[in-house]
């Protein structure tokens, strides 16, 4: 479990805290966010790697962002059309994928220097592990804070929800606990 969690860029590299905190109040939101993120990351990685010989080094970051924006817009519109409820729940955090540091980080550190096939694989795996990390966070928070998973009540109706778990400080605390558990043997 420890090793699995460390594969997630949020816990392994301490990147992408913003969506990790904001959308993990419910498992559905986390999975939706994870899928959208994986989609964007895979395709942006693919295209960055494809165009890497055409992209001048001086202006690579703006160009990366343009590529990312394209796919974010695609996701944004798809989600608004097919999953309006999820779209409403995720709100600003879908457009914010544009400036997500994991996506830019992979583009800059990996896709820009590697082949198309490798970049595609890298994007996909990073996206999946990010989704996994979000799902773990969201599952714990939803279970504690609402007593449910995917909106279905799992605990007894007498359970008094721990509201803090779904509040921002609860998210921070949980990430802290998970990081502590992951890093403990290194101490």
């Amino acid at each position: 479990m420890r090793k699995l969690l460390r594969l997630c860029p949020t816990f392994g590299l301490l990147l992408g805290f913003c969506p990790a905190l904001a959308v993990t109040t419910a498992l559905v939101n986390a999975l939706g966010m994870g899928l959208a993120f994986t989609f964007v990351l895979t395709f942006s990685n693919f295209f960055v790697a494809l165009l890497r010989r055409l992209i001048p080094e001086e202006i690579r970051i703006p160009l990366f962002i343009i590529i990312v924006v394209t796919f974010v817009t695609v996701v944004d519109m798809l989600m608004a059309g097919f999953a309006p409820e999820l779209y409403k729940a995720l709100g600003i955090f879908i457009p914010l994928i544009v400036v997500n540091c994991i996506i830019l980080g992979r583009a800059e550190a990996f896709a820009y220097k590697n082949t198309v096939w490798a970049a595609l694989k890298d994007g996909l795996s990073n996206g999946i592990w990010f989704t996994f990390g979000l799902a773990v966070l969201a599952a714990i928070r939803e279970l504690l804070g609402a007593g449910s998973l995917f909106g279905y009540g799992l605990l007894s109706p007498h359970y008094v929800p721990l509201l803090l778990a779904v509040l921002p400080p609860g998210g921070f605390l949980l990430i802290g606990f998970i990081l502590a558990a992951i890093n403990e043997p290194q101490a």
Partner: protein
Amino acid sequence: MKILAVSPHLHSGTTTRVLMRDVLIALTPVLLAALYFFRWRALALVLVCVISAVLTELLAARIFKKENKVQDLSAVVTGLLLAFCLPPALPLWMAALGSFFAIFVAKELFGGIGCNIFNPALSGRAFLLASYASFMTTWSRPLDAVTAATPLALAKAGSAVDALTSAAAQAAGQTAVYRDLFWGAVAGSLGETSAAAILLGAAYLFCRRVIDWREPFSYLATVALIMFLAGQAVLFHLLAGGLLLGAFFMSNDYTTTPMSTRGKLIFGIGCGILTSVIRLRGGYPEGVCYAILIMNMFVPLIDRLDLKRQ
């Protein structure tokens, strides 16, 4: 056995354990007042908080593989203080959870005694307030345990200040209100209602030179001044709510407050301003807990200020 050690070869005898024991002695009047006004609920809450605090400390020592420091009594003090800022009707398991949070998260995760940034008892309270807001704001009247609002909540709603200032409540009613506030026959957290008991305990700590006067007095003076300028009933604001308990037992906690004279004054004044602002303009009727926690965050900064000066 012969001992070779660096000078000095004498010690004042005032160890951490002795200091904590003094704080416990000072909290005894408050405890007695709580037991009198809230009866067995007070006893149960205090026991649950203290026991779970001590157990958490033992557990933390186990998990982090370090020597357990239970014998320094600091966990007992934290548990007791946490119990004192909980409403009497709070379910016991919540109190235990708050105690766990106070010791494990706010204290031990930061490195144990002396290393915590936030006041553990207040962190525990803030945790409970954020998690179980409705339970944490359901107050009961002393003695008969009927659900009632605290004086500050009434004041926030406008009725108590009216009661204090309106012609209907004239001099007689006003003294009765103040008498109740002073002795503690009002709704509120276990340990905050009786000003008399708190002052008695604080006086003991002053006599034993355990606490410094600077934080509590600059804190109280700032609140008094702002309330006076805002046209509020100054004495009412000093006596009501957790101000006295916070000022004398939490705003001068050694670990989470500045070390220098000037820093202590800055800390007290900051707490006073924040408390007043929350009470007058904030969403909560009471602001002592958050005021102190927020000022706790400034402590490293305030301490640096004095290092620079050296």
